[in-house]
């Protein structure tokens, strides 16, 4: 398992932003924090770094999300078990 902390910058438009929040809520790998304006902190938990990378990419492409900034990444499981990477 890997855990990453991200900041999503949401679009200004209310409707697309709401759609993005709905999509995030449906994904059990994502936990949303308290938004600061358009900035939403989220935690992403995935089985591997590779899956985390793919999920980040899909968030970048999600309608209603303007930017994705990665703040932290924990890869202790990948390092302990290099085969997992």
């Amino acid at each position, binding site marked *: 398992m890997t855990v990453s902390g991200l900041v999503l910058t949401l679009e200004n438009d209310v409707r697309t932003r709401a759609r993005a929040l709905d999509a995030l809520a449906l994904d059990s790998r994502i936990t949303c*924090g308290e938004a*600061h304006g358009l900035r939403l902190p989220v935690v992403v938990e995935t089985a591997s770094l590779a899956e985390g990378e793919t999920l980040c990419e899909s968030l970048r492409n999600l309608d209603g999300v303007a930017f994705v900034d990665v703040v*932290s*990444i*924990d890869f202790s499981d990948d390092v302990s078990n290099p085969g997992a990477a």
Partner: protein
Amino acid sequence: MDRRDFIRNSAMGAATVAASRLALGKEGLAHAEPVAADGITWNKAPCRFCGTGCHVQVGVKGGKVVSIQGDQKAEVNKGLLCVKGYHVGLALYGKDRLTKPMLRKNGKLEPISWDEAIEVIAKRVMKNPAGFAIYGSGQWTIPEGYAANKIIKAGIGNNQIDPNARLCMASAVTGFLSTYGVDEPAGCYDDLDKADVIILWGNNPAEMHPVLFSRIVDRRSKGEKVTLIDIGTRRTRTSGFCEHVLTMKPHGDLAIALGIMHLLVESGTYDKGFVEKYCNFRQRVDPPTLDGKAMTFDEYKAALKEYTPEKVEKLSGVAAKDIRMLAELFGKKDLKITSLWCMGMNQHTRGTAINDLVHGVHLLSGHFGKPGDAPTSLTGQPSACGTAREVGTLVHALPGGLLVAKDEHRKEAEALWNLPAGRINAKPGYHTVEMWKRFSTPKAKGGDIDTIWVQVTNPAQSMPNRNALIDPSRKDPDKFLIVSDVYPTQTAMMADLLLPSALWVEKNGMFGNSERRTQQWFKQVDPPGEARDDCWQLIAVSHKLMELGHAGMKDKDGKWLFHTEKDGKEVQIWDWKHYYDINVDERLFDEYRKFSRFKHKDLAPYQEYVKARGLRWPVVQQKDGSWRETRFRFSKFDDPYATKADIQFYHSVTKDDRALIWFHPHENPPEMPDAEYPMWLCTGRVIEHWHTGSLTMRIPQLHAAMPQAYVEMHRDDAKALGVQNGEVVVIESRRGSVEVPVWIDGRGSPPPGSLFVPFFDETILINRVTLEAHDPLSKQPDYKKCAVRVKKRPPKVAAAAGKG
């Protein structure tokens, strides 16, 4: 709370603080740094990759780096990281780390002991000290570079030390020196938060300096207006964010800058008051020098006269209306304009000239010295500034901006190093291209460099025209190549002696980033196997040389150059068992910082950097004993050394506190497309990989994201050649060839007649094709333009049949 909850809560805390900072420009209520718990210990370190200088928090557990967070306290990145940065910890754990010293015997690398390895190097030096050279990089830590420089300049005395920074920012250095009389940018990253207009001169920060670029673009999401202008030879990922994308012909940048200057002067919109108070005019002489020849304003105006927008359009390919648009922007005093550049302007056979001209546009228009108004070069390596430029690991330099050719500078250095008078050689060594050329030339034909020790770089992949500059040495039994590295790179696998090195947080270190910020970190994990610090390797060789009787390894009192005491007793830092009995970095840095006073690049004591996330020099002690960094050099409101006027260029070439505005004519590059080689080739980097990819290609996620190099080709050229996406073509120049798959409408889009190939992939060595032609002053080669032809790869079956 279980471990999972702890990690999740830490990640959410970090993300919340970052979100708060991004939204409000300040820290929120959440904790600002990782909490030491769950067996993970956290410590700061600058990122190992580019010259931006982001800080990370490194989480260590069980002797391994297990987690990386953007450092919330770091002003540079404010808690954020790019794709390379958040994978940086994994750079330590590639499966093929070098773990034992190895000596080539009968053509094969065989393990030997460290004692044997150190002795092999020392004996090789003793055999011919004049033919020994060290080739390092902007990835050397500051103490490593300082140790290497001291061994060569104070000890061996041949000045044969140069860094790969010669290949990446030497033209920026000569541009700063010839304009201001002293190296490195006056401004800093704060300019990016204030500028109304940012002009990217051959620069692709969305991929090369992504954290800085997101800092710029992020301003838009706060409702701020910032206009981005991209001037380059191809559309890049950056172009998509820019209001204006001006695609120019290779070398067109000189004409564009001259066109802006011409319009500013003709229209009278230049800043007359600024120019009269703070500037002189200069023109080049032949052969070129850094101080050139004085010219009057009227002569300068006359020289610019021919660079009308229409003529500039012909020379550069950029429309006359766009040249007018640029000049109008520079003519507006109420705007703040920052120029950024990196390899596009530096890897250029007229690199010094274009650097001078861009500084000149800012000086002429008065867009200088206020937050947001700055000409700022960016660097590609984490310590190109801190080590290569400031420590002076260049063949002509001494620490702190001193020069070997100047009598008074040698005397100062001899005094600080306690050397006998006359020890330091006044003759510069061979710059990078010349050093490798001589290493690849037989001794009988003038190849007087016979041993090169490479540390922290991979020249077999990064040097231009590898077939001529690298490969011949490997067939010459007189030539001996020593390589210290962490992975079996192209260069490592050619070595006669291969030394395993510690990497990043496996050792203490200090870097200096693009905005004059000096950073420090402590060792956090052990290196694998027998890998050891590069700095220790240098010190051990120095001690062995002294043991073998090399007189240069002692100072004038007969003490070893690296003599170190603790509590009145000598510490045997040459012996690995005792290397960490004392903080060698602290001892070397505090010795080195005495040099920083000469050019007002003042550094604080080592311990000040332990407390900070870097400090920008000059760092000057205040009356209360605290140390204050400087954001805006030469500006009285911030720089303590600017005291006489609002702007004071206190190291002015002309000794009158004025900067120089240069005139350099537009000229064509030395090699241009012709009937035989009809296309331009440009090389460069991609966001996923750092330079030759020796670290990032070993990080599975980055490798998977960009597994192989490619050639970007315009759709029309691909159609004319009859090739599809992914099809392999052969690119040939007068120097060599390479096979590479085609990417049409890829990440970047070159115009018809131009190709782009990144250099990160060791299986596709584009530097067999590139040209070693270099700038006459900076000696920096031009990787951005040479003439090539491209053809479909012949079917392998047919080739085999033909042979049969």
